[in-house]
């Protein structure tokens, strides 16, 4: 923070320093994926419940059903995007050291993409892989 005795106006001091930058985009994507997640989570729960007690072949047949596969894919993708945004806010709230914060935000992105990719690959293999 700069001294009060500065001759720069308050506006000049804060201009370009806003924490937001792409904040509205972040906020909005969080909301869009949240809305999607409500519907997709309910679909996910239905799929999981329907698989309880099923033998392997029947479970794979369900997961390879196009409607189920698409809903599951959307669930993991929307979930990964949503959780990445949410964890980024947590990191920015609690980690104050700039370098560590950047590393944590980057690791957060890697984690979200890795988990999303693993889920997506598994789902696609269930549908297309022999």
């Amino acid at each position: 923070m700069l001294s009060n005795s500065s001759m720069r106006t308050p506006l000049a001091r804060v201009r370009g320093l806003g924490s937001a930058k792409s904040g509205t985009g972040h906020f909005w994507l969080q909301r869009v994926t949240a809305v999607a997640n409500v519907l997709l989570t309910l679909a996910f729960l239905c799929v999981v419940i329907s698989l309880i007690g099923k033998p392997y072949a029947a479970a794979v047949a369900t997961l390879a059903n196009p409607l189920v596969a698409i809903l599951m894919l959307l669930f993991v993708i929307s979930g990964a995007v949503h959780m990445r945004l949410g964890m980024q806010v947590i990191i920015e709230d609690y980690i104050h050291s700039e370098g560590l914060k950047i590393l944590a935000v980057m690791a957060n992105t890697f984690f979200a993409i890795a988990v999303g990719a693993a889920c997506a690959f598994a789902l696609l293999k269930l549908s297309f892989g022999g």
Partner: protein
Amino acid sequence: MAEVKPAARPLSPHLQIYRWSWTMAMSVAHRATGAALYGGTLLVAFWLVAAASGPAAYDTAQAIAGSVLGRLVLFGYTFVLLHHMVGGLRHFVWDMGHGYDPQTRMNLAKFSGLVSGVLTLLVWIAAYALR
């Protein structure tokens, strides 16, 4: 125009100084459940990868999920997931500009806790009924 010494900035007091209220508890719970679900996606990934790996891996995953500990974890996961979902619905109400007066805020907080508990039980009743 030397801008030398940083001005002292007031800091807001940390969490522990406030008296706990329902709204505060549910706000903390929303973040905590979100963080828990972040780790919980690993379970979804393990399960899907096991299914994609073949019958042996899938049966192992099902055996773990079906064990007493597995069921406890999954019950907790269900509650955390639905709690975060219902908490999110509460945020939608606020996003649309409603529910800001003290009484409504308090009711929304208590209601979301109750609804997520009831939904969790419904999911598990359905799971046991349909298996």
